[in-house]
């Protein structure tokens, strides 16, 4: 079969579109990866103080910090803190593993944001309970646009 010029350009346009549109996280995939983190256990609100800007200009670097209300003793401490997002290519951001030797359940890092979205922080306690906090961040210039 002979391919006309028009057919050929349509084909290549389709192929390049497929290349630049990677899979994206959705609120559903975020729920799945949160379930994988908690093992399906119920999550309560509270105890977690999630600090992230409400409005950011540049999604390439957004500072965030999490402080969990916990005495951080051997019997009662935060074991893990997970950060999850809805609209980046992947739903996971980072998982931090803490020990009683941390003294305080406090972490800070910087993340990329591909779009305006809700970010969720979940703390796993040593007794197997989970607490969460979420925050909406409005992004005016998302990360990955120049990619």
């Amino acid at each position, binding site marked *: 079969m002979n391919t006309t010029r028009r057919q050929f350009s349509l084909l290549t346009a389709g192929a390049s579109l497929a290349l630049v549109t990677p899979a994206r996280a959705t609120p559903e995939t975020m729920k799945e990866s949160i379930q994988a983190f908690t093992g399906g256990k119920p999550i309560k609100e509270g105890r977690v103080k999630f600090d992230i800007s409400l409005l950011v200009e540049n999604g390439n670097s957004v500072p965030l910090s999490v402080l969990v209300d916990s005495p951080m003793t051997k019997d009662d401490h935060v074991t893990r803190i997970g950060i999850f997002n809805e609209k980046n290519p992947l739903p996971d951001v980072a998982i931090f593993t803490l*020990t009683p*030797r941390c003294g305080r359940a406090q972490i800070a890092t*910087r993340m990329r944001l591909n779009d305006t979205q809700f970010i969720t922080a979940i703390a796993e306690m040593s007794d197997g309970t989970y607490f969460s906090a979420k925050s909406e961040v409005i992004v005016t210039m998302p990360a990955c646009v120049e990619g």
Partner: protein
Amino acid sequence: MARALINVPQKAKRGEIIEIKTLMSHPMETGFRTGLDGQLVPRDIIEQFVCTYNGEVVFSAHLYPAITANPFLSFTTIAADSGTLVFSWTDNKGETQVQTASIQVE
């Protein structure tokens, strides 16, 4: 890998909670971007960070591509004894870079 900046207080009182900040120079290439040739740029990210204090793990982190280039991490630890803090960053190819800092506890 390249250089890391680590901020650990040189001296601390016993039992004091100290804040540790680390900044690793790394591109954190997500593996989702296309290069100039139209091909996907292969993923190159730091996946694992571990901090030990006199041989005991106090903090670790698993990072995903959503963490920025030159990943910054901040956490706390209790100044228990004078000694060494060892920081290690491992990328998705299994390469590890280690850096140390010493602390004097009074």
